[in-house]
């Protein structure tokens, strides 16, 4: 199989397209998944506390 322009275009129009769309959908699902919301809430609050030492 020669790696010419046509081959690359065919590849990017099929697999390239699908993996990007799949990733995009995956990210949106992860971010919007209701069960994750509480985790995100804790994450964004937790940087605000004042203790400045590693946890043990």
């Amino acid at each position, binding site marked *: 199989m020669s790696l010419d*322009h046509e081959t690359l*275009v065919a590849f990017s129009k099929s697999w390239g397209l699908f993996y*990007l769309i799949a*990733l*995009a959908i995956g*990210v*949106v699902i*992860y*971010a*919007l998944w209701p069960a994750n*919301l*509480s*985790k*995100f*809430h*804790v*994450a*964004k*609050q*937790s*940087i*605000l*506390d*004042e*203790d*400045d*030492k*590693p*946890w*043990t």
Partner: protein
Amino acid sequence: MVAQLTSGERQLALVVLIALALVGLAMGVVGRADPIGVHGLIVLVLSVGLTFLVLSSLYAPEPSAERLSQYYDDPSKVGIILAIVWGIIGMAMGVWVAALLAWPDLTFDAGWASFGRLRPVHTSGVIFGFGGNALIATSFHVLQRTSRARLAGQFSPWFVLLGYNLFCIIAAAGYFMGVTQSKEYAEPEWYADIWLVIVWVTYFLLYIRTLARRKEPHIYVANWYYMAFILVVAVLHIVNNLAVPVSLGHAKSYSAFSGVQDAMTQWWYGHNAVAFFLTAGFLGMMYYYLPKRAGRPIFSYRLSIISFWGITFMYMWAGSHHLHYTALPEWVQTLGMTFSLVLLVPSWASAGNALATLNGAWHKVRDDATLRFMMAAAVFYGLATFEGSFLAIRQVNSLSHYTDWTVGHVHAGALGWVALITFGSIYSVVPWLWKRERMYSAALVEVHFWLAIAGTVVYVFAMWNSGIIQGLMWRTYNESGTLTYSFIDSVVAMHPYYIARAFGGLLFLLGILVCAYNIWMTIRMAPAVQPTSTADLPEPRQIPVSPAPAE
């Protein structure tokens, strides 16, 4: 600081330094009169100097085990100072380069002071010296705080920081001697590139190893940005710098790519350097220090995740907008243009997220110049990305390319976004690192803020004007179908704007000098809080914090 290392780490440092000194010696001997020989000498001198530093404390007592219950901040402190030093050098070079464009005689007939050599000293000095050190220093700080774990080891943070600065020194020294690969933002030659790969891989491993120790199960979004910065810069750097040296004793090398492939690789690199060096890492800063300083959580954590992946995936495809109307196939140009337009969405999502976080705390923004630095940075980030997406449209680019409009866009991003977010983060982190209650002078922060804003605005407006005039003059035809203006006409027309730009840059430079003085005085200030209550000393109260408290 050496005494803080364990004796094993001191020995390791010695071994590494001696090996490095030998490499420097070999470069000097093999390279002789070639610039690589001078570089070898620099490596030799610096590593011997550091060797003596380590030797002076080689037999100091072991550091107390108590250090393990604190964060390791020494490398961050040194990194912040180095960032400021490089910032002053790089921006002074910027002012010089700007002055050269207005008054070309300022080279004083010296080869090393010619425009082509000073310009990369400016760009590398500010991007890699100032920006890079600030990124490394803050990334160590943020990483430890957000994962509630101490850095993995004490040697590798120093190796990363000092090794990186060695790279920066080699780069700058090389430009003065005329060493360059002629790839913008990737000018240093093959041996410097190899060294940077070693340093950068160590950086990545350090990051991953520290994350692996984290006590906080969720990885805060700022770390994702920092990690994207480290990982992608490694990939970009390695691919774009694939080259074959003329011989081991010569600085010169030839790229593995040729023709339009070389151009495409370079601008795939160049644009992603903008994306992952000048954007992703600084977004990491923003997502940590802005909420922290404002005392409010980020407006939408979900949005920050979506925009992270949006930026990460889309930037990769945008590089070809630097090569409109070239030999690059048109569909590749169109691809780059399309992705650049879509890129505006995640970019504005980040800028909007930052501003929405401040919504309701505007009184703090009014009173606190540090927070205002970060707010202004978010605004300029929004502006620069909007402008970028606009410039990426092929028809717009036909006007803007080769003109000062590009330079105006660059500095709207570089001064307005990169430098302002850095100053905001530095003013937040300096009192924290040195355990002072606040900066030495809030008034000087205020002065710096206005100098920086004035400098940026003058710079950017001068370049917009000059760029558009230039572009229009180059495409104005008269009735007989020939060009109305000669090239030199456009050069003359730009002269006043170049003076204005140099003046704006001077204001910006004055700002960072004020900043340096303020930091210096803050460090010299006695710790304001009585030492027994500073956070780093062990305290009996030790409230156990559960990793995932139920709200």
